[in-house]
């Protein structure tokens, strides 16, 4: 007997199981099916410490509007088996109205999931699958989840067909298993039906790592050198064939020292260049980043942040590389730091970073994170922006060419090897305008001013931050907290609380005037970030004269920041 279920605008479901159970495959198909049905969605994943074959969980949110954040709780947790699935408990919060589905042949669900008050529905996934020659329990689970949230059968079918292109018996078996799963769902008597899908629009299914890679190529990047590291590797793995197709090259370097110096060499040669890494790798790139600043060589470094410090937790997210990105270089070394604020925005931000680096002849660090990088999302097709490499090149045989000329903007035309009559030596030693090393105080001061000045020489326009809402309260945040804050604000509205959302995309150079303007009339601001030490809060205090009272809300990784905790904080704080 099915409960009368209200249609939902967002449903979160998770599928877990031991290694080899195929939960990721099923999860990906479910996301694809949701996309086919016209929904938006977001899938993240988690796995145990085992390199391979350990327990895994695919965590999906499917909704009628774009999902820039995970939700607070899961409506459904289905497990192919319970193996070590309990270790995901902190990542899979349930509530009393949730449903736990498990195969009774695999034992009872762990207590930790049931203590939420969630209802347990035993479903014989394995036995059901067994009845279908070539059928697998994960496909039954897929059908079950699809059924529970009311995805049309055609969408499920299309998703399965798309990922099993070979077709044949295997496809038929999978389709049958999915069908059986849908049937099992109907028997449970609870449903979490999605509201009708919104009007079709042009959408992508993409990860943040792919979006960043594509943004870089759009921005003009044609050379990448990098060293594998979780969670940046997929960005590189996406770029390797993509670059080759557009006439670019990716070199796997022997280490991060090599990768960053390789891209400096390539960019010195006139080719916009990028590397991608995570915290430990970024640490090794610090010295050469300084060379990029001093010798004025544009490069882009995408740091897909993971939980630190040191090796930390390689597969989990955190926003704690803001310090190193902003302040990690020795000496006074002005450079660009940008941060995307959604999976899709990884495209725009990386493209913009490339454009700015090229325009200003300076290294740009893009602070993505594991959440963005590895999340797969159904997003609105990102707008075409025209940011592309815009390096000012010096003319052949320019008279009295000086590479580091003290121009009014601070940007000096760059001679590209191969151009006659204007050869010079790029130098990380302090130098005069020609580039010849100099230890004169006047040269040092002039070049320091030049390098600082150029960062303030352009109008960064509206992209410096996302600004939404009105009122005397504001939440200032960045990166992957943005989606949760947006959602928290939306909920707070129902409580009669409203305010402004400010999510900074351009972290360096700081934009004090712009921020002051954006905060005009704001009395109090809540600063939301995912770092134990409050790096963003300290950054704001150090870089800006904020005209309002500040309160810090922060937590470290590895768990994502959820709308509910911010919502509660906003209520408590707005009423304090």
């Amino acid at each position, binding site marked *: 007997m099915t409960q009368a279920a209200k249609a939902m605008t967002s449903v979160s479901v998770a599928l877990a199981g031991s290694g080899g159970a195929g939960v990721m495959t099923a999860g990906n198909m479910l996301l694809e099916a949701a*996309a086919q049905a016209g929904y938006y969605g977001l899938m993240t994943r988690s796995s145990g410490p085992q390199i391979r074959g350990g327990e895994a969980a695919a965590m999906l949110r499917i909704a009628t509007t774009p999902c820039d954040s995970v939700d607070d709780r899961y409506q459904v947790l289905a497990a192919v088996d319970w193996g070590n699935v309990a270790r995901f408990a902190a990542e899979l919060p349930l509530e009393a109205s949730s449903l736990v589905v498990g195969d009774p042949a695999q034992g009872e669900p762990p207590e930790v999931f049931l203590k939420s008050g969630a209802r347990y529905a035993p479903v014989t996934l394995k036995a059901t699958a067994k009845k279908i020659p070539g059928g697998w329990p994960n496909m039954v689970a897929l059908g079950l989840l699809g059924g529970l949230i009311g995805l049309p059968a055609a969408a499920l079918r299309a998703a399965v067909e798309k990922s099993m292109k070979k077709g044949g018996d295997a496809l038929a078996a999978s389709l049958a298993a999915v069908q059986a799963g849908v049937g099992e769902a109907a028997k449970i008597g609870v449903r979490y039906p999605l509201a009708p899908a919104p009007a079709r629009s*042009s959408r*992508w*299914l*993409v990860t943040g790592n792919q979006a960043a890679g*594509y943004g870089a*190529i*759009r921005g003009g990047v*044609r*050379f990448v050198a990098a060293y594998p590291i979780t969670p940046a590797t997929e960005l590189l793995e996406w770029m390797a*064939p*993509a670059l*080759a*197709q*557009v*006439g670019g*090259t*990716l*070199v796997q*370097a*022997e*280490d991060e*020292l*090599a*990768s960053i*110096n*390789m*891209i*400096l*060499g*390539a*960019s*010195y*040669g*006139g*080719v916009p*260049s990028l590397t991608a890494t995570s915290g430990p790798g970024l640490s090794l790139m610090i*010295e*050469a980043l*300084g*060379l990029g600043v001093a*010798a004025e060589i544009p490069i882009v470094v995408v740091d897909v942040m993971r939980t630190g410090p040191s090796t930390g937790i390689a597969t989990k997210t955190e926003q704690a590389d803001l310090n190193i990105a902003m302040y990690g270089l020795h000496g006074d070394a002005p450079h660009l730091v940008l941060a995307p604020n959604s999976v899709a925005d990884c495209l725009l931000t990386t493209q913009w970073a490339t454009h700015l680096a090229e325009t200003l002849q300076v290294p740009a660090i893009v602070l993505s994170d594991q959440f963005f990088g590895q999340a797969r999302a159904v997003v609105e*097709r990102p707008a075409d922006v025209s940011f592309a490499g815009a390096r000012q090149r010096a003319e052949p045989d320019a008279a009295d060419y000086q590479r580091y000329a003290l121009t009014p903007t601070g940007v000096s035309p760059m*001679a590209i*090897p*191969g*151009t*006659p*009559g*204007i*050869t*010079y*030596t*790029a*130098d*990380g*030693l302090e130098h005069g305008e020609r*580039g*010849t*090393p100099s230890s004169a105080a006047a040269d040092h001061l002039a070049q320091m001013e030049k390098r600082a000045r150029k960062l303030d020489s352009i109008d960064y326009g509206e992209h410096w931050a996302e600004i939404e809402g009105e009122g005397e309260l504001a939440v200032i945040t960045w990166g992957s907290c943005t989606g949760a804050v947006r959602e928290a604000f939306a909920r707070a509205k129902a409580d009669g609380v409203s305010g402004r959302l400010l999510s900074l995309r351009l972290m360096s150079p700081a934009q004090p005037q712009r921020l002051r303007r954006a905060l005009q009339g704001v009395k109090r601001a809540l600063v939301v970030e995912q770092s134990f030490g409050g790096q963003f809060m300290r950054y704001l205090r150090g870089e800006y004269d904020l005209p309002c009272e500040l309160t810090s809300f922060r937590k470290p990784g590895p768990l994502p920041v959820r709308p509910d905790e911010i919502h509660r904080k906003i209520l408590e704080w707005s009423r304090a």
Partner: protein
Amino acid sequence: MNAPATATNLKPQQFKSDVKPVWCPGCGDYTVLSSITKALAALEVRPENVAVVSGIGCSSRIPAYTTCYGFHGVHGRALAAATGLKVARPDLTVIAAGGDGDGYSIGGNHFLHACRRNVDLTYIVMDNRVYGMTKGQPSPTTEPDWDSKLSPHGTGLREFHPLVIALASGANFIARATSSDPNGTADLITQAVRHPGFSFIEVLSPCVTFRPEQRSWKDMVHPAPVEPTDDPARAARRLMTDDGFNIGVLFAGHRKPYRPEASASPKRVAELEAEFVL
């Protein structure tokens, strides 16, 4: 190297810039600079089509003393920068240059991997068996008993053998030169640049300030008593028993230089997004 589009008639002098070297009078690096400029003239390249890339050290100051494009990077990373440059700009002639500290100590890993990667560039090390720039500390090639402030009574460590390492890691051309013979060195550099793939030249280049006894190297060097070989195993044996003063080409192999494959299915940028579209 890549063949110059048109032959030039430039004189070595035209490859020398007007920047005054910081080197001590008598430093071996002066003649290495001359050898490079002579080689470039002989190669009939134009300065704007050549890039000289270095790290940090006395010897690493060399790029600015040429009229070529120069890249004076950070300590130990010359080969990484040169690799990126050459892979991104295969049309340029790329020469990496520097010292024994830069190349064999902090830069050792890039040396290994550049030999292995076999990108078509030339690496010239001015080996003076000392850190000149930082005023006299032992380098990997320093004799174990050389007394210095940082290592009183010597390091006690066996010298690093650059040619053997180059061979073991796959360098495609290996030569030893001496700054006391600028023409001979120019000739070796010319051959090295012409040889496809990664070519390595170790130049004995005395530091007259911190190792004045190296002035006597000019009396110790002698032409290699054997013909170059293309057999690594034979070269290994020869190099491992070499007296350190054999001058000439010691190995010249036939490995194919590294070159990124061009795609069989080139695309326009916008086409790449097809895979995301729902």
